[in-house]
């Protein structure tokens, strides 16, 4: 029992540190990548290639004056960023990072917890995430913050629907399981889900951009209209938490997309490679290679997120709502209908 707790604690800590580390370096990579896209150099003064820049940024955030407006609701004001950070960290708990490792006959899953309704859990936690923004915007007692919060909540609710429906289509092709672990394991044999769900993936990707409040859907923090949006009144590390949580969200949604649609830790000819290297099932080397493959996919997705951000201008709010309700929702319904029809004729669905 104690060994189980220690093992889970290690996995929890590892995922926690991984999320924070990736988020920290995603801030640097965002700036670097933006610089590359714009023929600039980017931050390169802090350490070699600017590798210590995240530390410098974090230090700056910590040492800034912390301002809590006296007209704000103090408890809620602090709760907002905490909740946002908490939910974004919680999403990482159902993702299987690599194949199970067997040590001394015992199998250890490299996943915090395998819930059999993992995808529902994810959608639920992501929905709670919007409360962080809403509470923060409302507690600030500032009209810009409130407008940002309202935008964020209506945007997230609108895009969650299309996202949910595109995931339902995915679950149908995956044989009705809601466990992320099983969906990933299925893609070990056969093709990745992107082959069966190309339209669903595109819908999911657009919705993920909207859910993470990234450009071109970053209306909640639209500088040109709302000063800073929902975090206008925030300063110091509480602002840092918002910015940081956004990057964690980006990391986790990249991980989900890479996992659900691109096979996660699986890659083409993986089993051939493992047998050629003489590795047995459950070896830690397999897990390491698989984790590397998974991480490469996540990195590519993060790059795509950034690439989109530094290319496309921000939507107008009515365009955003049009896209969500009048384009993506019908498209996802169509995708669902086609999926159900195809699966019915393949004999995978019985009424």
């Amino acid at each position, binding site marked *: 029992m104690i060994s189980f707790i220690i093992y889970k604690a290690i996995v929890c800590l590892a995922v926690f540190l991984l999320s924070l580390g990736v988020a920290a370096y995603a801030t640097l990579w965002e700036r670097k990548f933006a*610089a*590359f*896209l*714009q*023929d*600039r*150099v980017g931050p*390169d003064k802090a350490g070699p290639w600017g590798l210590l820049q995240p530390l410098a940024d974090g230090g700056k955030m910590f040492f800034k004056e912390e301002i809590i407006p006296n007209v704000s609701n103090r408890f809620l004001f602090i709760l907002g960023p905490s909740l946002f950070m908490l939910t974004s960290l919680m999403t990482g708990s159902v993702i299987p990072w690599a194949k199970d490792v067997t040590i001394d006959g015992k199998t250890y899953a490299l996943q915090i917890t395998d819930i059999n309704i993992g995808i529902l859990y994810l959608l639920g936690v992501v929905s709670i995430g919007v409360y962080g923004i809403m509470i923060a915007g409302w507690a600030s007692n500032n009209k810009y913050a409130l407008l940002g919060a309202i935008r964020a909540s209506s945007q997230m609710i609108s895009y969650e629907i299309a996202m949910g429906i595109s995931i339902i289509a995915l679950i149908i092709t995956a044989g009705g399981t809601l466990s992320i672990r099983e969906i990933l394991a299925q893609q070990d044999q056969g093709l990745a889900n992107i082959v069966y769900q190309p339209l669903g993936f595109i819908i999911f990707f657009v919705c993920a951009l909207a859910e993470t409040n990234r450009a071109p859907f970053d209306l909640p923090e639209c500088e040109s209209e709302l000063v800073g949006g929902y975090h206008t009144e925030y300063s110091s590390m509480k602002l840092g938490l918002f910015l940081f949580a956004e990057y964690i969200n980006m990391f986790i949604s990249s991980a989900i997309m890479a996992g659900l649609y691109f096979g996660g830790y699986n890659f083409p000819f993986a089993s051939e490679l493992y047998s050629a290297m003489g590795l047995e099932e459950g070896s830690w080397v397999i897990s390491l290679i698989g984790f590397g493959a998974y991480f490469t996919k996540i990195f590519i997705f993060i790059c795509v997120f950034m*690439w*989109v951000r*530094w*290319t*496309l201008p921000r939507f107008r709010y009515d365009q955003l709502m049009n896209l969500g309700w009048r384009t993506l929702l019908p498209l996802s319904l169509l995708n669902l209908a086609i999926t159900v029809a195809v699966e019915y004729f393949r004999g995978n669905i019985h009424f």
Partner: protein
Amino acid sequence: MQLTNRRKVVSNKEQSFAERLYLPAVAKGMFITASHLFKKTPTTKYPEQTRPMAPVYRGQHVLKRDENGAERCTACGLCAVACPAEAITMESAERKKGEESLYREEKYAKTYEINMLRCIFCGLCEEACPKEAIFLTDRIVDAEYEREDFVYGKDKLVEKTDKRIDVTKRQTLEVAEFKKIEGTKHNTLWDGKKQLKDKH
């Protein structure tokens, strides 16, 4: 009437289906930004790297001394007259006995000021100077906090005896030829022919 052939009739016609989808336009934009990933950055990382500077760069002025260390300037005021930006002012004074080592001729500039904010670094003062006294150098005028600090007096302009400034690069052949013209032939300090021989 048509002034240019670049006139374009603006139409507000309805978007086609492909245009309304935005996806082709999005793909085009993504391609453009991606192509910039593979372009060279034109950045010069300034404090470590500097851009090449022309040898005849026109920067901060210097008031030259002659080989004995005496100031060449006689406060004739031709530079101030030539200056299109009216950046130069000066006051003249008569050389006293015993000051021969300080000033080359009987008249000298008691004060000599150039307002570096007015100056456009055209080099006309240098061209006008009959005494080979003022030159523009490849030094860059420093940034200052106050406007007054940009008015450079003799303390900043006159060449230090222990820190001579080389201006041979700015004494071009064209200038030498110009100085040979009768009526402007008043400078015997520097012979253009000598430099001609050195160059060819």
